[in-house]
Structures are given as structure tokens and as C-alpha cells.
């Protein structure tokens, strides 16, 4: 609270008194600690020495001796490794496909004179009001032959109406003069989209892409109802079975040098790591991307 670089201190925002500043400082520290402390203890438990974990009753706040046995254990090529690869692949392919479809829809529906545009827009927006029920969706997914297919984790969620509305709003806020000028020069819609609209839309594409990627990475329930084959499970489903459900994870229990708690927490860390790693790079686009899109819509 001491620094105020960036924006000048407006006269009405006088510096708060010492009691107020103390209260604010405490409140902020508590908020930040409530978020970060649980995550920290998970990391600490995952890298703690097995002896230490047992002595402490299953959790560690500050590991005295570091041990990466838990990670070595789950990354040795068993179900966790496979699940991470499945999730990674589904996320990569799914995000790409989702972005392509969403950009196509959003761009076409943002053009004011599109033939049938208003009807198509209502057709799409209506689905927001009445989401497909779990049972009918299951029957559709099965009848189009997606049972036991990785595509069952992608295709039923290909386009998200909220993301579409955000992106369409952003496209509508772009200056039309540039596009008209390109059209006069003979550019087709594809060229305009690729050369003019997309380069101007980096923030919204980044944000919507992050939303899609996170949703694909976090998907777990669909694997339970669509997959008979456990080796196809994504990381979320594995996490549910072995961490929340408490099933034994190590395939050969005697060979492990880590405590079961450390192994479980290592799975949690591995399932969280990609999101936490991606997050700082895209975080600066949040407000710009989401709000310009959503508020205009």
C-alpha cells in the first residue's frame, strides 16, 4: 500500500490512517494466505520425506528433507503418466478445434448484414437458456459413435456460448473502416479474418483459449460415463479415483519409496501444474479480453 506508481493519487483518495492501513493489511494477508497456504501444504507434502509425513500424521508444512520419490513413483509410466498424456492431448486438440469453431461463428455472426444472421444468432443463444440434459446428451454422444472415444471429451463441448458471446462482442467493437477498406481492395472474408481481425484480437483469443484449455484439462466426469477402458482416463478422473476416492495408487506397493500421502499430493500437483504455469502469461489479458467482449454484448 506504500507504493502508488502508475496512477497519481487523486485528492479524494487521501492516505488512510494507521489503524485503517493495518486493518487492510491484515485483511489482504488473510485473503492471500487462504488461497496460497492450502496449495503450499500440498506441494510440501508431495516433496517431503516419507518418515516425516508419517511422524506428522499425513501432512507437512515445511519439509525438512526433500524427496522426489513420489514424483518418480507416479511418473514411472503407470496410470498417472498415461492420464497426463491423455489430458494434454485432449486439451491441445480440443482447444484448437474449439477456437477455430468459435472464431468462425463469432466472426460470421458479428457481420451485420449476414444472410439469416439474426435467426442463426437466436438459434445459438437459445441453447444457453436450455442446456442439454445429462441423459439426452449421453444418448446423442453414444448414437454418434463416440463411446470409448477420446472425442467424447471434446466434441460435446466444442463451442461454449459464453465464450462465443465474448468473442463476438469483441469483433463487433473493432473498427469497421479497416475491414471495409480491405474489402474494396478485393480481400475476401477469409483474408480479412486472417490478416486484419485476428491480429487485432489477440487478447480475446488468448482469454477464450485459456478458458477452453482449462475446461478441457479439468474434464473428468465424461470419462466416467463414456469410457469403459480405464487406461483412457484423463488426469481428473484418475485424481478422483485415487485421491478423493482413496484407492491405492501404486501398482507395486512394495517398490515405492514414498508415503501414500506424498504420492496422492504429487498427483494433485501434477494435475494443477499446467494451469498454474500457463496462468501468469495469460492473466494480463483477462480484464481487457473478458470485459470489452462481455460488456459490449
Amino acid at each position: 500500500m506504500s507504493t502508488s506508481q502508475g496512477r497519481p493519487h487523486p485528492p479524494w483518495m487521501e492516505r488512510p490512517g494507521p489503524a485503517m492501513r493495518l486493518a487492510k493489511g491484515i485483511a489482504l494477508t488473510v485473503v492471500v494466505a487462504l488461497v496460497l497456504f492450502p496449495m503450499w501444504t500440498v506441494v510440501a507434502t508431495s516433496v517431503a520425506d516419507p518418515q516425516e509425513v508419517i511422524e506428522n500424521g499425513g501432512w507437512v508444512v515445511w519439509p525438512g528433507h526433500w524427496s522426489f520419490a513420489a514424483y518418480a513413483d507416479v511418473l514411472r509410466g503407470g496410470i498417472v503418466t498415461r492420464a497426463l498424456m491423455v489430458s494434454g492431448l485432449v486439451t491441445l486438440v480440443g482447444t484448437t478445434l474449439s477456437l477455430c469453431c468459435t472464431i468462425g461463428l463469432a466472426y460470421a455472426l458479428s457481420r451485420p448484414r449476414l444472410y439469416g444472421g439474426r435467426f442463426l444468432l437466436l438459434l445459438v443463444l437459445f441453447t444457453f437458456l436450455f442446456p442439454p440434459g445429462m441423459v439426452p446428451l449421453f444418448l446423442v454422444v453414444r448414437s454418434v459413435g463416440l463411446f470409448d472415444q477420446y472425442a467424447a471429451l471434446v466434441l460435446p463441448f466444442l463451442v461454449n456460448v459464453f465464450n462465443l458471446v465474448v468473442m463476438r462482442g469483441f469483433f463487433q467493437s473493432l473498427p469497421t473502416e479497416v475491414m471495409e477498406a480491405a474489402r474494396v481492395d478485393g480481400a475476401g472474408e477469409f483474408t480479412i479474418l486472417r490478416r486484419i481481425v485476428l491480429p487485432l484480437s489477440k487478447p480475446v483469443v488468448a482469454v477464450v483459449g485459456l478458458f477452453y484449455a482449462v475446461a478441457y484439462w479439468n474434464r473428468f466426469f465424461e470419462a466416467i460415463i463414456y469410457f469403459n477402458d480405464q487406461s483412457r482416463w484423463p488426469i481428473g478422473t484418475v485424481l478422483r479415483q485415487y485421491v478423493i476416492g482413496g484407492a491405492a495408487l501404486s501398482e507395486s506397493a512394495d517398490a515405492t519409496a514414498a508415503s501414500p500421502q506424498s504420492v496422492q499430493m504429487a498427483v494433485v500437483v501434477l494435475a494443477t501444474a499446467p494451469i498454474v504455469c500457463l496462468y501468469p502469461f495469460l492473466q494480463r489479458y483477462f480484464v481487457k479480453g473478458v470485459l470489452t467482449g462481455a460488456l459490449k454484448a
Partner: protein
Amino acid sequence: MVVVRAKERIGSPPTPLPPPAVRPGRLHTHARRLWADRALLLLLLPGLLYFLVFHYGSLFGNVLAFKDYVPFLGVQDSPWVGTDNFRRMFADPLFWSAVANTLLIAVLQLVFFFPVPLGLALLLHSIAGDTLRRFVQSVVYLPHFLSWVIVIALFQHMLGGAGVVNGWLNDVGVGGISVIGNPDAYKPLVVAQLIWKECGWATIIFLAALSQVDEQLYEAAALDGAGWRRRLWHVTLPAIRPVIVLLLVLRLGEFLSIGFEQFFLQRQAVGPEAGEVLDTFVYFTGFASGDFGYAAAVSLFKGAIGVALIYTANKVAHRLGEQGVYRS
């Protein structure tokens, strides 16, 4: 498109148009406009196909609610049973227990979750240092991006029988409290989980509203000698009132949609008595017991109530002079 045609006219010598065989009727103009927009229509085709197959396709699947689903007969050939499934639903005590749990959790969410992001947004907004504010924002947004599986694993690690908090309490000799798996503590627990996961993210919209408050109002109030409390009460809150009302109305419209994954993951731990909500009821009757027709009826009922609620909420928003979700 008009422009391109104009260019053609300039480039090529004027050729006389062939005499139209028939008067260009409505069909003709439609076909021409369709052809003129072919690139755009091609762009939106894959996405449109998705909506038709998975959304409108499964909309038709709701006929299952009026059938007695027999797996080897399929949806089409299963016998019609009229409103039997719905009658069963209204007579089913388990259904009503799921309704009661859903409503209670929804009310708790509204009362205890809703004010938290507003308070947090006011706190964040009052931080003068940009760096510090951005850091705190990054931290509080983060849980929104974690899956429910991870959040619940974290809560188990913290509050479970062998968790961090219990361990500490044992160390200081207070004795453990059981939160995870305790049916009595389930409802406060799920609300706490929701607050932990989503309250930071929910501040975004309030922060945007706060940043748009006219600064001259603050200056004027300050000149008139209003302290920060009066400025908060007479300037800030009235200025963001539309946003507060809108979000409240939106929340009322989604009253029954309290989420599925969070409850699906924890129902086993506390039992259906305390942990069953409408969405998990649909899952466990449909997928676990194979009673698909009945499950479809429950989910259709919930969907219909949901649409009615959104419609009403929107009407209320208009009545209050707000924008609402959609304009009709």
C-alpha cells in the same frame, strides 16, 4: 459485396444484362444473398453443426421423459408411458429430499456467497499500489481455474480427519473436529468451497463497475467534507447498484443450477440423505440405476423450471429498469 460488384463494373466494359426470363422473385433474391455470403456461412458451418447435433439433437432426446426406456429397444421403439414418469417423480420422497437439499444450498449460496465478492472488490479497489493490487488479484483469481476435483482434494488435505487443521488442533490439544464426511457440516462446507473457488473471480465484474464510477463525484463529495464512509455509502454503492441488482437477478434465474461436479464428488462421503441435489439425483437414477426415462423426466422438469426462472428474473430486471440478460 456491393463494392466488389462495383469494381467489376469499372474494370469491364458495360455489357447489357441478359433479359430476365422470369421476374426475379423472392426465392431468387434469397439464393443470391445466400451465395453472396457463402464465405461467412462456410465459416460458421462447423460451429452450427455442433449446436444442431449436440444441443438440438439432445433436445429431441427429452422425449425419453415420456417413455419407459428399454435399452435394447432404443429411444425410438421404447413404449410411450405418457406422464407416468412425472407422476412417479412427484410421489418420490427421494426426489423431494433432493429438491430440499438443492433449495437449501441455493439459499445458503445466495446469502453467504453473494456479498463476499462485493466486499473483496471494494477492498481490492481501495489498494492504491498497482503492483500490490495486481498481485492480490492474480492470487484470488487462481482458484477459479482449478477443477472441483483439485479443490476437493485440497479441502480434504486441509480439513480431513488426517488433515492439516485437525492435526494442528490435536497438537494444541483442542481435539479434532470432523468436517469432511460429516453430514451436518456438509452444507456449510460446500458453500465454503464455493467461496474459496469463485469469490475472487466474481470480483472482476464489480471491479469493472467500480473503475467506471465518475471520479468527479468523489471529488465533489470530498470537497463537501464527506469522509470515506459517507463516500462509500453515498457515491460508490449507488453507482454500482445496477451491477449488483443485475448479478442478483441473474443468480435468481439460475437458482436450481447450483452445480453438479462438486456434489457428485462428495455425495458418497456424506450419503444421499444430506448430499443429494437435483443434478446428482438425475445421475444416480439414470446412470447408476439404469432408470433413464425417469432421470430424463427429472432433468426435463428441472430445465423447464430453470427457463421459467430465467424468464421471470429477466422480467424483474426490466421492471427495475435494468438491462437484464436479454432484450425481447
